[in-house]
């Protein structure tokens, strides 16, 4: 069973590597939004620093939402998804492989870029470590939860807006704890608390998401 997992992971990563443009899109989106904030609000460093943690996390949410929509789309169109659903291998494991690939393609680059974006928003230096650690776990939670919504809406023609309506409420705890970890660190407090909660959220969504997504895909494929 490990074989199917690895095969799907390798295939998805290879596909993503072939269309490098699609990987770059969320990252470019990130940079453009970061440019918009000072233009719309203020270029003043002290005021930007106050809102930086929240802005960065809201952006991570939006970027994840935009990219997760396509998680099952191409597989649905070319019939690969149908093969996955009826294959004897456990579906939740295949789903987990796809989610892991999605995180490696979107969540991880965003996490690695976060310090640069934080710098552009004059995030105080104490905030960088909790920002990166939080995003590392948080983007994985976002991919896991987003996959449920993507599975539910993959067969629908206008799934995009519906997906955000479904998934956004589930994202809120991630936003709260991610942003507050950064904020607390900036204010000079320990960040173990919110980061531990983030870890708990990750473990919890690992627990429910593969099964819920597998169920959602079965519904989408066979009604």
């Amino acid at each position, binding site marked *: 069973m490990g074989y199917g997992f690895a095969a799907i992971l390798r295939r998805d990563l290879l596909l993503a590597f072939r269309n490098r443009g699609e990987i770059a899109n969320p990252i470019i989106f990130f940079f453009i939004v970061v440019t918009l904030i000072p233009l719309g609000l203020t270029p003043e460093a002290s005021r930007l620093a106050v809102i930086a943690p929240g802005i960065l996390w809201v952006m991570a949410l939006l970027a994840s939402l935009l990219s997760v929509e396509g998680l099952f789309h191409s597989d649905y169109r070319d019939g690969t998804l149908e093969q996955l659903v009826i294959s004897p291998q456990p579906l939740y494991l295949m789903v987990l492989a796809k989610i892991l690939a999605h995180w490696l393609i979107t969540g991880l680059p965003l996490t690695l870029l976060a310090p640069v974006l934080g710098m552009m928003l004059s995030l105080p230096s104490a905030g960088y470590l909790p920002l990166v650690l939080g995003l590392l776990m948080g983007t994985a939670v976002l991919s896991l939860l987003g996959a449920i919504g993507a599975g539910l809406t993959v067969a629908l023609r206008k799934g995009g807006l519906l997906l955000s309506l479904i998934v956004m409420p589930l994202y809120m705890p991630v936003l709260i704890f991610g942003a507050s970890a950064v904020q607390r660190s900036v204010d000079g*407090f*320990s960040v*173990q*608390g919110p980061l*531990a909660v983030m870890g*708990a959220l990750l*473990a919890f969504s*690992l627990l429910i998401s593969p099964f819920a997504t597998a169920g959602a895909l079965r519904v989408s494929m066979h009604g």
Partner: protein
Amino acid sequence: MMNPIRRQRLFLVIFIVVAASLAVGLMTYALRDNINLFYPPSDIAAGEAPPGVRIRAGGMVVDGSVERASDSLFVRFLVTDGEAEVEVHYTGILPDLFATGEAAVVTGELNEQGVFMASEVLAKHDENYTPPEVADAMNAAHERAQQSVDES
């Protein structure tokens, strides 16, 4: 040798147990932390609150402790949680619900002398709904009790 289906089930069970215990363990760890940065006066008196960083404190406003400056909006009062008292300094307009004997929450920093320099004062309304007659009666009873304590 186990057959593949059994092995798969075993992996699944192990995965569920590990993830669930991880979630519960991390949650309990997080709850031990003072997660909301709220310090009651007894904690501040015991020196548990760090000075110079933005924290919150709160308690009942002590009767007769509110002193207002005549020429500015400066005000000074004590808050208590029944065990210890903390002095709060604040410059600004106090909310309407602020009154002695009522609960207040202050946001600000502790200075080196242990005085709380508040940048924000919020009055807390409680959830004890009472008819006005009952409230009056309770206040009167409270005053009578106070008087008898004073007299004795």
